[in-house]
């Protein structure tokens, strides 16, 4: 299941951004998964919480939009500062 590798990459990238932005934690992430991207939505939804466990993304809500093309895109990250 390559979705776990990709979910770990997403968590790593988001963690980097949180650090750059000086944010405490992420509340949501918005991504697009295309039908030709080779990424399965349900596998990714299963893998993401596993990849996020113990990170600042642990409580983040994953928002997925689907398209018919090759897209696999990270759109935005909602963060909180306490």
């Amino acid at each position, binding site marked *: 299941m390559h979705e776990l590798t990709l979910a770990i*990459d997403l968590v790593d*990238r988001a963690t980097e951004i949180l650090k750059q932005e000086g944010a405490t934690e992420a509340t949501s992430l918005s991504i697009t998964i295309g039908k*030709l991207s080779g990424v399965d939505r349900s596998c990714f939804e299963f893998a993401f919480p596993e990849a996020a466990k113990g990170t600042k993304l642990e409580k983040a809500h994953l928002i997925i939009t689907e398209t018919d093309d090759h897209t696999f*895109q*990270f759109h*935005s990250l909602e963060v*909180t500062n306490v």
Partner: protein
Amino acid sequence: MCKDCGCSTATHPLFPGSQQKLKISGTIKSTRKISIEESLFQKNQNNASENRQFFATEKLKVINVMSSPGSGKTTLLSKLLGEMKEHYSLAVLVGDQETTIDADRYAKQGVLAKQINTHAACHLDAKRIRENLVDLPNHLQLLVIENVGNLVCPAVFDLGEELKIALLSTPEGEEKPLKYPVLFHDADVIVLSKCDLIEVLNYDLDLVTKNIRSLNPSAPLILCSTKSGLGISELKETLEKSLSLKENAYVPGHTSNAHIN
């Protein structure tokens, strides 16, 4: 729907805009949205670009071969590369979850091969290729990456290769390209292996061709059989032409460190 918190009002009456401040148990919590807009394949893509740059500097031609497990990648490639090693200095990186069975099979044909065991992973990625390049001899002309047997995951990961080969064996049926479209859609060369079984299996060659062409109208489709030798020369010529290998032909004795003796 409110874009801030998902409530049913068009604009949130209390917290308009993307900035909101909530007072929670005496602390001020502020939420903000950061726009990213980057590909989620970016991390692998960066590694693949570095590999591609390295291959260009080294004048190394790289092929990524993908198929199901048991479709005959190792048998076909060890036969093909056993012949090609007389003309080119070449090596194989072969991916499997466990064992060195495939690397041993290449070695028996006198083909230099390094086994990569991916353990839990179902594919090779660009970083893993880069980590394994250090063990290969200098002055290689051709590197063949035999990916982990899988029609799904390997298709997603760019390794920095110049040419992708998708291999399909006749016992897998005629419909596999339609069921696993990404690999066949993106392939530069498509090989149909175990063609000696066409008659035994009552295999529908027209149907598989139609299925492949519906996804990939232009990639060369080569029918092969390691038993009869069908297609081996055609595959060799296709690779030589696609990768301009002849312009870099092997000088015997010059780069013999790429061979196992």
